[in-house]
């Protein structure tokens, strides 16, 4: 029984939080900032606890299993959610449905926990839906905005379609192998065409969630239309969780199909980087811009993932951690600006460095990290991905990836340029930054700088594998 408590500690904490919020909500009249701080505190606790006492274990007849790395990843996801709860405080305070929002978001988080711990396809599918459907509802939480419901609609339909394809793939797998358990399945994989087919169907589900080209098309629309907290959640937490599961899937379950997935990764990764970059180049809306940038980032993640077990896992997990800090910092700034001034366009950011130097520098730092510029952590993250990818000695692939890095630098610099170098007759006024937001941004900034330079973190991840 102790196992159920310790191994599932993250899940328990999140569930408790969900129900706590639910009860508080049902009992009524609690001020939303109180609710928010409760949620923040609970998330902080969950984060801290998440990093501790991680060990191996299987529960529910191997449907659930965990190990230190999985525990670590869960803690990272919680951390990201915690950061979101800090950074988007402006928006949270405005919304009427704060408790519901957190309930849904935490449910999705719970879904992700279960997903990365899942031991068979059923659990995987269920938790995938658990992590998707609430988010689709969340996307609609800007109830007054047309684009919010459009985004939610696009998301739920796309994901329904995607899960249809996924299910079809799972059913074929089931037919071909007679099992839905991961550990049993890998013994049955032989690379027959039907298995390849079903693997590709399965892959599309990951690809869809990770926004891999050509399964990415929902991403930008949903990111743009959703409330910024949801966008952050989708682009950071959800992506990170799915990337992680994807790694487990290809390394542990589908390892026999290595030849297939390697080339699948190469192809889709190139497509993703190229298309993501090409679209990002011409975006004006910051959220949309970050959406495409995150698509392109996924391309790089796939480069790292193509490496294989040890270096692939470590580099991807490490990168996702850095990506969390960087992307959240960027989204945090966008969120403040958009909540306070209603402006989301890149042209509005012109001259931002004059009126809001702090925000501008945080933004610049975040973008540099996303672009992979030292000494920010993004440099290390990206470099390890590329190094891992290069371990296959397939260098033209790396060349393409690095070329794409340059394109991506171009558009990240575009933002920096408008903030620092261009003049604006009607600049965004100096905005007041809330304490929690400030704290969140500082946390992200420190994360961006420190994660890279201090190597023990990476070493720690390596040691977990």
């Amino acid at each position: 029984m102790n196992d159920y408590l310790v191994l599932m500690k993250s899940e328990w904490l999140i569930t408790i939080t969900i129900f706590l919020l639910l009860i508080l909500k049902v009992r009524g009249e609690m001020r939303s900032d109180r609710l928010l701080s409760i949620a923040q505190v609970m998330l902080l606790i969950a984060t801290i606890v998440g990093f501790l006492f991680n060990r191996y274990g299987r529960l529910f007849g191997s449907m659930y299993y965990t190990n230190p790395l999985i525990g670590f990843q869960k803690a990272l996801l919680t951390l990201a959610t915690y950061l979101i709860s800090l950074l988007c405080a402006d928006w949270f305070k405005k919304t009427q449905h704060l408790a519901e929002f957190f309930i849904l978001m935490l449910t999705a988080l719970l879904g992700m926990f279960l997903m990365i711990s899942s031991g068979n396809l059923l659990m995987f599918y269920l938790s995938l839906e658990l992590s998707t459907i609430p988010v689709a509802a969340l996307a609609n939480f800007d109830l007054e905005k047309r684009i919010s419901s459009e985004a939610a609609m696009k998301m739920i339909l796309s994901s329904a379609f995607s899960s249809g394809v996924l299910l079809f793939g799972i059913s074929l797998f089931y037919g071909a192998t007679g099992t839905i358990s991961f550990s049993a399945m890998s013994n049955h994989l032989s690379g027959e065409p039907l298995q390849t087919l079903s693997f590709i169907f399965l892959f599309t589900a990951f690809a869809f969630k990770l926004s891999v080209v050509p399964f990415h098309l929902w991403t930008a629309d949903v990111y743009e239309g959703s409330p910024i907290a949801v966008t952050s959640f989708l682009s950071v937490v959800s992506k990170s969780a799915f990337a992680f599961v994807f790694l487990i899937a290809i390394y542990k379950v589908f390892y026999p199909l290595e030849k297939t997935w390697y080339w699948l990764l190469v192809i889709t990764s190139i497509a993703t980087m190229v298309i993501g970059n090409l679209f990002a180049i011409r975006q004006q809306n910051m959220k949309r811009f970050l959406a495409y940038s995150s698509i392109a980032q996924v391309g790089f993640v796939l480069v790292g993932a193509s490496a294989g077990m040890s270096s692939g896992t470590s580099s991807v997990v490490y990168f996702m951690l850095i990506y969390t800090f960087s992307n959240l910092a960027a989204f945090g700034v966008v969120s403040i600006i958009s909540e306070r001034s209603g402006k989301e366009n890149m042209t509005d950011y012109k001259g931002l460095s004059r009126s809001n130097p702090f925000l501008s520098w945080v933004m610049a730092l975040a973008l540099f990290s996303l672009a992979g510029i030292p000494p920010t952590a993004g440099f290390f993250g990206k470099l390890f991905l590329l190094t891992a990818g290069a371990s296959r000695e397939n260098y033209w692939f790396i060349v393409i990836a690095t070329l794409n890095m340059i394109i991506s630098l171009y558009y990240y610099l575009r933002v920096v340029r408008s903030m620092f170098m261009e003049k604006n007759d009607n600049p965004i006024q100096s905005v007041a930054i809330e304490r929690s937001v400030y704290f969140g941004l500082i946390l992200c900034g420190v994360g961006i700088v420190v994660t890279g330079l201090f190597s023990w973190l990476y070493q720690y991840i390596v040691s977990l594998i």
Partner: protein
Amino acid sequence: MHPGLNHLLFVSTSLFFIGVYGFFTRRNLVTILMSVELILNSVNLNFIAFNKYLWPHRLDGAFFTVFVIAIAAAEAAVAIAIIINLYRSHQSIDVEKAEELKY
């Protein structure tokens, strides 16, 4: 010829692509949702068929079906809520009317 696995698979696959076709071509959001239901049903049929004909020693397929049905219900509920909300803001549930987000 007694119908076997292949027949059932034919039915399910056809149903799947009928759903897909519907998903691609219907303009009304509710009908798109209906297509999704068809897709999910076809998958369920697959599971049951495989369970029955190939792997009857365990009930994995059947359980999968049960859970898929449950998920489908939840998904449909959320989808319909979103559709209704969309209807409120757009005064229409034509999918082509909700194309503000693009490029």
